[in-house]
């Protein structure tokens, strides 16, 4: 059956947009890290993109239904890895997110995203109803909550939050009673302020700085302010590659990872970011289009979960860059330097292509 699938059937528009974004990312990483201790990040990123592309291809060939059938094992393995990370993981910047395997470090929480996308799809297909009842919600919520709590514990609130759109998107598409929706909204309104007190002090600071960055411009507000200065310094046309002072004199924090879009905005201006954001918009719309042409609900849930996750990533990361979102420290898909996130995005796109290749039901 797999032999009947043709390379021509890959979503080439999606692939091209993806590679253009990766190319912009590599160029920006090169420009931003020149003469810094991360100066080799750009060619590492090329390797990540290349290997990620291969993973996408491999996953596209595999029938997603066979993955769905074994989802319980993937889920258990994923949770086990998260637990293992807590014990044997590498601690960097006070957070234990990485596990070392054969000389490579993997951020296990990134790969959990794919497991959760598949898990949510599988569960919702199995329920076979257009109105979920509260037991389904609790059960599914529980499946997602376990890895979320493990990731929060690392601590990595940003990545943990990315699990939520997968769940929310799936549940909303599956169908939910209005009164449940209202009830959830009510619970959130009560729980969120309480939850604030359970945040780590630095996380509370970030939220406060987001609302009022000038309160402590040298401390927690620094990143927010410097990012906004970098963006504004770009102006309409940008300062030009490698000509950006905020990026090159170190005022912009981590200009090749979480704040790569600030650096991009400083060097390429408003024109540059419009081009970049249009590419991300097309990428997400292309994923959504694959959801619409999916052969079954499982494929639809997978694609929509991925679209929601990508949208969330872009919203939170770019929103942070431009000062419209708090600093959560999640990367910009495809552009930010880093192996695990790049691979996890390519794997997701592999899933999308896997759905696409099977869109014609014979």
């Amino acid at each position: 059956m797999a032999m009947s699938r043709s390379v021509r059937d890959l979503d080439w528009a999606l692939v091209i947009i993806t590679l253009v974004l990766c190319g912009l990312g590599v160029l920006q990483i090169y420009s931003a890290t020149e003469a810094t201790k991360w100066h080799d990040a750009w060619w590492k990123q090329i390797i990540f993109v290349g290997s990620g592309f291969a993973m996408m291809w491999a996953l596209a060939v595999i029938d997603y239904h066979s993955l769905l059938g074994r989802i319980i094992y993937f889920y258990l393995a994923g949770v086990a890895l998260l637990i293992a990370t807590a014990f044997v993981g590498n601690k960097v910047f006070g957070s234990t997110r990485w596990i070392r395997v054969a000389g490579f470090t993997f951020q296990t929480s990134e790969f959990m995203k794919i497991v959760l996308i598949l898990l949510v799809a599988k569960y919702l297909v199995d329920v076979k109803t257009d109105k979920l009842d509260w037991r389904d919600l609790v059960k599914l919520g529980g499946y997602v909550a376990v890895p979320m709590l493990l990731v929060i514990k690392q601590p990595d609130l940003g990545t943990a939050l990315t699990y939520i759109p997968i769940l929310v998107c799936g549940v909303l598409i599956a169908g939910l009673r209005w009164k449940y929706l209202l009830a959830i909204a009510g619970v959130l309104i009560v729980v969120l302020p309480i939850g604030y007190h359970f945040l780590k002090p630095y996380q509370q600071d970030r939220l406060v700085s987001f609302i009022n960055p000038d309160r402590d411009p040298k401390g927690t507000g620094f990143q927010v302010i410097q990012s906004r200065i970098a963006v504004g310094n770009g102006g309409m046309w940008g300062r030009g590659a490698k000509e950006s002072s905020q990026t090159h004199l170190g005022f912009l924090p981590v200009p090749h990872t979480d704040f790569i879009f600030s650096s991009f905005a400083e060097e390429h201006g408003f024109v540059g970011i419009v081009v970049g954001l249009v590419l991300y918009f097309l990428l997400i719309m292309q994923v959504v289009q694959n959801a619409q042409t999916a052969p079954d609900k499982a494929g639809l849930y997978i694609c929509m979960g991925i679209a929601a996750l990508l949208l969330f990533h872009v919203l939170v990361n770019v929103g942070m860059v431009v000062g419209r979102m708090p600093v959560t420290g999640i990367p910009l898909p495809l552009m930010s330097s880093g192996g695990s996130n790049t691979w996890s995005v390519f794997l997701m796109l592999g899933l999308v292509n896997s759905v696409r290749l099977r869109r014609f039901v014979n």
Partner: protein
Amino acid sequence: MEVVDTEHRREEDVSSQRLLRDDPKAASGKIALFQYLTVGVFVFLVSGFWKIQVQNPDVYSEAAERNRIKSTPILAPRGKLLDRDGRVIVDNKASYSLLLNRDQIKPEHLPAIAEALQLDYGELANKIRRMGSTPQIIIKDDLSRDDIAFVESHQDGSAYPEMQLIKSWRRQYPQDGLAAHVIGYVGEISESELDLPQFSDYHQGDIIGKDGIEREYDQQLRGVDGQQRVLVDNWGRERALEDAKAAVAGKDLQLTIDLDLQAVAELVMEGKRGSVVALDPRNGAVLAMVSRPSFDPNKFTGRISRADWNEIATNPEKPLMNRAIQAEFAPGSTFKPFVALAGLETGTIDEDTEFHCPGGASFYGHYFACWRQKQGGHGTISLHRAIAQSCDVFFYNVANRLGIDRLAHYAELAGFGHKTGVDLPNERESTMPSTRWKMRVFRQKWYLGETISVGIGQGALTVSPLELAAAEGGLAIGGNWYRPHLLKDARPVLTRTGHLNPDNVQKIIYGMYGVVNEGGTGHVAQLPNIKVCGKTGTAQLASNQLLKGTKLGQTMKDNAWFVGYAPEEAPEIVVVALFENGEHGDHAGPMVRDVLKAYFDKKARGRELEAEARGFHARALFAMFAGPLGAGVQP
């Protein structure tokens, strides 16, 4: 039950592998909703960039420039002050100052910095708050070696990166307060000064002249600070020099002050309260100016501590007051030459007019004593002896005949009642009473009896030492009054010309010659070979009148004045000494004599040196021509 059911359903799905093709279409409405949401998210993000990058990019590019450019002031040295011979009076010493970069200041660092540099924490914090708009705040000048060591070991990123050392100049004033009142001192510009229109181009934290020449010529002395702009990174490391603007040094000013004369004048005032002023009456050049008690301007350089300031400012002796231009006292008998002048010029008296002095006289029902009352008065006396012996009764009569307004006319011609206009700040105006003056100030009629006291330099009449020197000097050169000045290059300004009868002036000068050389009241001021003219003055304090009868009034001693000039035939220097509570004018006489002596000694020495130099020149010429021809011939 339900669990089983779910299991059943799941098995069915996996086995069938496929759902109906239409199935996903059921969700198309929700997918459309997602698409709208996506559009919304991107519009939200793009609008964020629009607002920052397109609507006000200048705000951010300026912020980015503030981030990367560290500008350091290059302080301009203030101009030096030189004496009339070019000797340095006020110099600058290269030193280091510490400034804090405002945008790097962390409030929690300040107590530690204050402690290490022995600054008062409260003052420092207050200063930083007060200078809210200044990007760099100099907090300490003239750092000690320990201070510099502290800054250098703590200014990197890890400790107190807000600290920055800069080169600066410390003002070096003469020791012991020499000429302190002429020079003045410098200090940090105050809030109230910043509000004044003449200081509109000054900034918070600038050093500005506070008094004296430093204040008067601040614009010329201060120079223009330069600036060095360096590209720095987030860790404060300097990457490259962006640009630099050199500082322009302030202009050096040469004063009319003669350091030798000033030193002697300081010496004669030692331990006394009062003032000595020496003027060249021919052009108004101030040769020496001393006021006592004095202060040490070195304590004021730059940023004085509040404690030091309070100690000086609240001292009841008022050491900051320049008595030469701010002390206003009755001139006493030193005023008599002007009464004589008015009498002669108006024809009220001539040199032979005689009055009888039995030790006092009555006018308008009041008895006015002469200072020789106890010795039985001066007897019958005319002008020359009246000046030489300072006979009060003679001048009571002259004043009475003149009336106050004719007297005031000639006194004002000499400068009484006016500021001299000397180029020093805060000169006070003296008082020359007249009918107009009394009406203006008190809205009262002048009583004829008041004229009598004015005839001997008492009553409401007041004068400062500089004014008196200018008035007497102008009279001594025949009735041309020049404005006193302190800049050597300034053109002399003739403020008033009397068009006086030279014979009349000569009679008065001759009388003042008699004061010193014919057994008059000022014989202590005699100098060998130099014809010194002078006049003593013993003046009751203005406040003495009010305190009469009280215990304090009785213990308050009179002020002693002496004015002297020389040589008689062509006066080139006039010296006034005010010895507060010095009791009698002849106590001030030796002070004036010593200054005059120093002047003429120096002049003689200068002539000798000049002659010697000319002689040497001639010998050198001779040697040049004679040398090759006749070796061994020594001139």
